[in-house]
């Protein structure tokens, strides 16, 4: 790329400021669309992921299933293990496991839980619920119950429970009222409603009942073992890898949230693909725009090009001048567009604070550098064909000598 080509390209762009500005504005618009789409698609994915992983455990540790298995597959005699239904699924020896889990990197919360099914009875109404017995101080480790309280307090005395607002509404329950809970182990006792929460997850708000760990032991007849260990990790997207590590270190069955939420990932994938198509279109628009502008410009400058060729300019020089012009339009337009997009997205709230109805746009996922790079490349590509046309101009015809 000779310095003279650079000079002539820049000189021509500067000599036609109106036309140059218009072209660059077009490119800038395309780049803004590109960045806006990246930020929106990225922000949406972040928001949906946050909403999904916010209140659920990222990894659940349970006792491995004792599935039927063939123990000696060598033919003559068959030895099989039948599914064992005589024992309950419980983690009997759990205390030694907790420090192992806590020492694993990237784990931010560990909550051993007693889980069980029960019925809430009030008068003639009965509702099925899922009871979660949490250890003291671990109430908000997995779902932020403290922050979700809408009534009462989140203390969990031995005879107190916390229920969801849907359940409270369905059964007409209020703070301080007493209800009877009968567990699937055939035990029953009365509880006072200490607090009501709204997590915003329908199933939890209708069915979750939180209670004291010790009380839950008695209700579900689990004197020493626990039902499961719920874990949160950061970042949540690493859950599958960490689950695999925990599976090996504890021997327990470890289920990452990603296994149960494949629909979310399919949705995010489809969304990302849509974004790519829109972004590709904005690049194609830039290519078509620059190409046609360059072709017109070359027709208009035919005699200029002809005279340069007649005076000894090589085809390569002519090509470099026009490719440079196109590339410069792309580069400057892209930078301007990126700056405009950056400024336009500046006042938007972070995705975590988007209220319903607002667009979850994440400026950090705007792909600014990618947008500038791709646009500049597209502009370069767009000008190659016109530039080669320019180099083919016959000086004799162009000059009309």
């Amino acid at each position, binding site marked *: 790329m000779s310095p003279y080509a650079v000079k002539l390209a820049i*000189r021509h762009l500067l000599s036609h400021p109106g036309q140059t500005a218009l072209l660059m504005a077009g490119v800038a618009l395309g780049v803004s669309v590109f960045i806006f789409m990246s930020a929106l698609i990225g922000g949406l994915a972040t928001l949906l992921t946050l909403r999904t992983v916010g209140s659920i455990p990222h990894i659940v540790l349970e006792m491995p299933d004792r599935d039927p298995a063939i123990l000696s597959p060598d033919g003559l005699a068959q030895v099989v293990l039948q599914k064992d239904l005589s024992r309950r699924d419980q983690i009997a020896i759990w205390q030694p496991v907790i420090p192992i889990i806590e020492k694993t990197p990237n784990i931010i919360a560990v909550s051993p839980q007693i889980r069980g099914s029960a019925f809430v009875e009030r008068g003639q109404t009965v509702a099925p619920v899922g009871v979660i017995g949490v250890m003291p101080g671990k109430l908000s480790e997995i779902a932020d119950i403290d922050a979700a309280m809408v009534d009462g307090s989140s203390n969990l005395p031995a005879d107190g429970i916390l229920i969801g607002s849907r359940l409270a509404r369905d059964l007409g329950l209020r703070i301080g009222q007493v209800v009877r809970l009968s567990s699937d182990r055939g035990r029953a006792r009365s509880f006072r409603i200490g607090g009501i929460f709204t997590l915003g997850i329908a199933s939890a708000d209708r069915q979750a009942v939180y209670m004291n760990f010790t009380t839950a032991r008695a209700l579900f007849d689990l004197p020493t073992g626990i039902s499961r260990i719920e874990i949160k990790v950061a970042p949540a997207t690493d859950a599958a890898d960490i689950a695999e590590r925990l599976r090996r270190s504890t021997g327990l069955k470890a289920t990452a949230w990603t296994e149960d939420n494949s629909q979310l990932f399919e949705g995010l994938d489809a969304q990302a693909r849509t974004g790519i198509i829109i972004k590709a279109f904005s690049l194609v628009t830039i290519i078509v725009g620059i190409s046609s502008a360059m072709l017109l410009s070359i027709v208009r400058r035919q005699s200029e090009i002809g*005279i*340069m060729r007649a005076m000894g300019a090589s085809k390569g020089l002519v090509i470099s001048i026009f490719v440079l012009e196109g590339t410069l339009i792309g580069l400057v337009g892209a930078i301007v567009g990126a700056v405009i997009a950056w400024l336009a997205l500046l006042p938007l709230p972070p995705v975590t604070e988007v209220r319903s109805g607002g667009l979850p746009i994440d400026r950090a996922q705007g792909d600014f550098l990618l947008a500038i790079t791709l646009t500049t490349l597209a502009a370069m590509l767009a000008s190659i064909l016109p530039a080669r046309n320019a180099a083919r101009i016959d000086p004799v015809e162009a000059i009309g*000598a």
Partner: protein
Amino acid sequence: MSAEAIFSVSGLTKRFGEGEAEVLVLKGIDLSMAAGEMAALLGPSGSGKSTLLTILGTLMRASGGTHDMLGVDLMQASEGQRTKFRSKHLGFVFQFHHLLPDLSALENVMMPAACAAGRETRAMRERATELLDAVGLADRRDYRPSAMSGGQRQRVAVARALINNPVLVLADEPTGNLDRQSADHVMDLIRSINQTMATSFLISTHDEHIAGQCPRRIELLDGRIVRS
């Protein structure tokens, strides 16, 4: 052919089109010019003056015959070689100035040299300033073509033709677009350059007054030289 001929063509033909539409425009031209010569090329419209100048300038290939210049067989040379040869040894002035509108007078004069070198150098700038001075436009060096008169533009074009110190300048009706006074000015200029720099000029014209200022007179009629 004299010993110090800078170019010579013999049996040079040029045909355009094919089959039914074929026209033979140059019908066997034998011509050579000596170093430092200044010749007028005359002939009625359509006689082939521009065609001949274009071929001599390596902007177009002849259909037949020989074309040698400075010991190079230009009939056999590749397109790339002809482009290099052109930029090194040939200068052009056309009826229309064809200056680049985005460049100043000085930059226009430097253009052929800068194209060959890939950059503008201080030496080029000095040489271009000298040439602008020689054509009497030292004070217009930073003007764009749009800010100059027709005669001034054509003088810039003459200066541009000289930047690479060509041995031959081909001028196709260089004054065709100028009034008598400007035309005389350009011709005076060409004559003095021809004398001081020993650059050869071949100038096509319809104007007897212009032709009268050239020591040699070549006449073309219907694709043939009838007087040289």
